[in-house]
């Protein structure tokens, strides 16, 4: 993408004021996005994202700049502009760059850029038809197809020089049902670190059908009661609860500054024995996976909580300095425009012993959250909230009527301690996670599990 000699000159210029580490991140990304709404392809856009991020450390000082100007003069100028903020004692030595070969662990069969738009639209039309014909009350179906090919080159003053190609493909389906004056919607958005083969082989009957079924089910659903209940959270995207409630608090981004409820608690019991929590960027072709992270480190399986004991955090290079520890291949950024920091990849609760049937039949009175919407957490406190896209009342060990307007609210560290059943049916769901280094593809995962008590917010009055 850019000549090695130019990169070396940029790394050197970045250290000209005494920084002790410099890094160059070069990105060239091709994206396509197609939207189908009311049976019509309404939007289709392609683009090329291109730019260079330059980062400098000096002790615990972190400076970042980026530009799309790829001339040597422009890059040297950007590096020097960033270096102005530094006054360190570094010797300006750049280790010779050693090109690393990345062993691809994520097979890409059909690069999206080689696939003509008509084939992508054909899959969307098929999904549209399935969702629309599910029920006569389905009034609107929207689909969004996205693909990306991201080429990155990462080099640093420690001699790292590595290139990688990441490919993401996703199809999102939203169905809207209407009856009288009431409207409700359902959503499903499968994605993978994969090419067009993933889209072509999707079980459209399942995904499009579910989006419509959720919308129709929530139409006429009772308003959710408010109060404290045992809550059964289903597998796959149900993992969003722990992603929001605990995952963010296990990122070095907040741990390193003592702004997490999990800071300084390694070795402590933070959850019941049945809870093991993992972040694994190596799962083949999963939506949140990467071969190398955005600092060029190989991704790996990081066990965060094992049998209830806090074992580790997700750590990036800069926060590793503050924490006096090693990075864990967890550094991520949305694009060259973001200073990278520690973030999740594919985060999940490991499978347990219970079957889903056992969990439901042993719950006398509670809420069953079949599909979760998205959510949010304050990482400093662990206070979270998230929406339930499809909920049911559980009565006498059986799933009863559907409920709408449900929200789960509470505190992550406390909720973690109240997990009392973990199922054996682990599955992963694709989502987008927004935080300080941008919006990223991540998987959230878990088996069905139960929390003995969560506050459920609803619209039904007392």
């Amino acid at each position: 993408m850019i000549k090695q000699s130019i990169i070396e000159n940029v790394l050197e210029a970045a250290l000209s004021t005494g920084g002790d580490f410099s890094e160059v991140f070069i990105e060239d990304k091709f994206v396509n996005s197609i939207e189908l709404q009311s049976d019509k392809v309404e939007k289709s856009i392609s683009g090329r994202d291109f730019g260079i991020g330059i980062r400098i450390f000096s002790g615990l000082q972190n400076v970042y700049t980026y530009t799309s100007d790829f001339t040597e003069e422009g890059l040297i100028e950007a590096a020097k502009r960033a270096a102005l903020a530094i006054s360190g004692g570094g010797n300006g030595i750049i280790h010779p760059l050693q090109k690393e070969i990345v062993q691809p662990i994520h097979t890409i069969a059909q690069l999206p850029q080689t696939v003509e738009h008509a084939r992508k639209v054909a899959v969307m039309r098929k999904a549209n038809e399935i969702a629309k014909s599910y029920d006569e009350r389905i009034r609107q179906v929207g689909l969004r197809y996205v693909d990306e090919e991201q080429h990155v080159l990462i080099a640093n003053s420690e001699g790292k020089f590595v290139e990688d190609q990441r490919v993401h493909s996703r199809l999102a389906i939203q169905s809207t049902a209407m009856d009288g004056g009431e409207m409700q919607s359902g959503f499903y958005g499968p994605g993978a670190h994969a090419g067009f083969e993933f889209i072509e082989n999707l079980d459209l009957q399942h995904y499009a059908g579910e989006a419509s079924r959720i919308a129709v089910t929530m139409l006429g659903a009772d308003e959710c009661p408010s109060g404290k209940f045992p809550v059964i959270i289903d597998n796959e995207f149900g993992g969003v609860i722990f992603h929001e409630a605990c995952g963010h608090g296990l990122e070095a981004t907040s741990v390193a500054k003592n702004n997490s409820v999990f800071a300084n608690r390694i070795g402590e019991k933070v959850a019941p024995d049945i809870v093991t929590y993992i972040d694994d960027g190596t799962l083949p072709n999963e939506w949140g996976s990467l071969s190398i992270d955005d600092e060029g480190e190989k991704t790996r399986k990081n066990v965060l909580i094992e049998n209830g004991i806090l074992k580790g955090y997700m750590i990036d290079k800069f926060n590793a300095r503050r924490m006096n520890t090693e990075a864990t291949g967890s550094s991520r950024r949305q694009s060259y425009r973001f200073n990278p920091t520690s973030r999740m990849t594919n985060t999940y609760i490991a499978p347990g012993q219970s079957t889903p049937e056992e969990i439901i039949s042993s719950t006398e009175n509670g809420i069953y959250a079949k599909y979760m919407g998205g959510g949010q957490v304050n990482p400093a406190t662990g206070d979270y909230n998230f929406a339930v896209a499809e909920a049911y009342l559980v009565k006498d060990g059986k799933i009863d009527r559907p409920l709408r307007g449900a929200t789960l609210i509470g505190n992550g560290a406390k909720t973690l301690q109240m997990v009392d059943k973990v199922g054996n049916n682990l599955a992963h769901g694709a989502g987008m996670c927004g935080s300080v280094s941008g919006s990223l593809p991540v998987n959230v995962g878990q088996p069905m599990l139960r929390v003995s008590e969560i506050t459920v917010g609803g619209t039904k009055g007392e």
Partner: protein
Amino acid sequence: MDIQQFQEELLSKAQDAKFEEAEFYYEKSNSFQVKIFEGEIDSYETSEEAGVGFRGLYNGSMGYAYTEKIDEDSISFLIESAKANADVLDEDDGTDIFEGSEHYSEHSRYSEELAAVSIPDKIEFIKEVEKKTLAYDSRITSLNYCMIQDFTEERVLANNKGLSLQGKTNGLIIFVSAVAKDGEEMKTGAGVRLTRDFNSLNAEEIAKEAAEEALSKLGETSIPSRKYPVIMRHDASASLLAAFTPIFSAEEAQKEQSLLKDKVGEGIGAETFSIVDDPFHPEALLGKNFDGEGVATEKTMIISNGTLKTLLHNRKTAKKDGVSSTGHASKASYKSTLSVAPDNLYIAPGEESQEELIAAMEEGVLITELSGLHSGTSTISGDFSVAASGFYIKDGKISSPVKQMTIAGNFFDYMNGIESVGADLKFVPGGYGSPSVKVKALSVTVD
């Protein structure tokens, strides 16, 4: 190659490639951001970003593509991609490229004085904010976030119908989040400033605001879960309005994704309630004198004393509804196709102060912060169920902070249920503003 040359070559090659109409849109922005942690620079980011969006009419369809690499290869990429995109579109509504408005406002959204403030001065200021925040009270243990950021943005819109427009804006944002601890309890409070006037900033005021907000949340108590009268403080109210902005989009209404479809001229809110979009509001940072397709922008009354006066339109939605564009064609950036979005959308202020609204409340809840708005709201149904922070009010006085709440309701009922609108209009990042608002009742659930 330089951008002028790129523009000329792109429009020329588009003509050769049989585009009937073609448009070049260029954006360049520079920004600077510093985060402070314990008196040191925790992160320091400067940036320069630029890109071109290309739009062209090909066989009756409008194809789009963009690039951030300004080189010869990208001209071919833009033209071939725009053709490929035009080929799959089903649009049949005669979208075209605009020749220009008769008049464009002269309002300036660029401050030369702000541009002249040096980086060391900005860094010194934000360090002072951190120092004063930490010194405010021994229970303030750290800052979650302590940031100063500025931006400068330039835009060029040119097409093969002779239109050539340019615009320039700048601004400064400060965001501070203080962490207060008392025993096991931990709370955060924020101080935010949006301005083009660096000299109007006061470090002590910002520090006090963030620290006092965090401290005021300590000692939380529970209240029964039920419906309460609610005062939505200006910033919480602005963020709720931001979440429901799509309901005012004619584009969403035409897709049957807004219940305000066919409601223009009808009463949809309380008589005390008005909503305005003003691209030139002096207290807001956003806003420009031409929209994403070159239409001149102006102040727009959306809801006037409860009556819906207009939805927000671009040229495509306006044509379909048989009305004039309101100048709300939106390009979120050169990467985007045209959509509809407000510039600075706000609830028009009334006359009572926040203190007066509280004093008039016998019992209720003051909501100071909302979260989970991106997932806890449905702009299709108007339903919301989101986490909230705030205080219990009794006998016209703030009584105590309340443990984490969920508030639930419906935005359409909310607009109808507004009883009073305060005078304390403030804007939040993103171009949304509100004064404090008193609402008849919302469901409140307490953990």
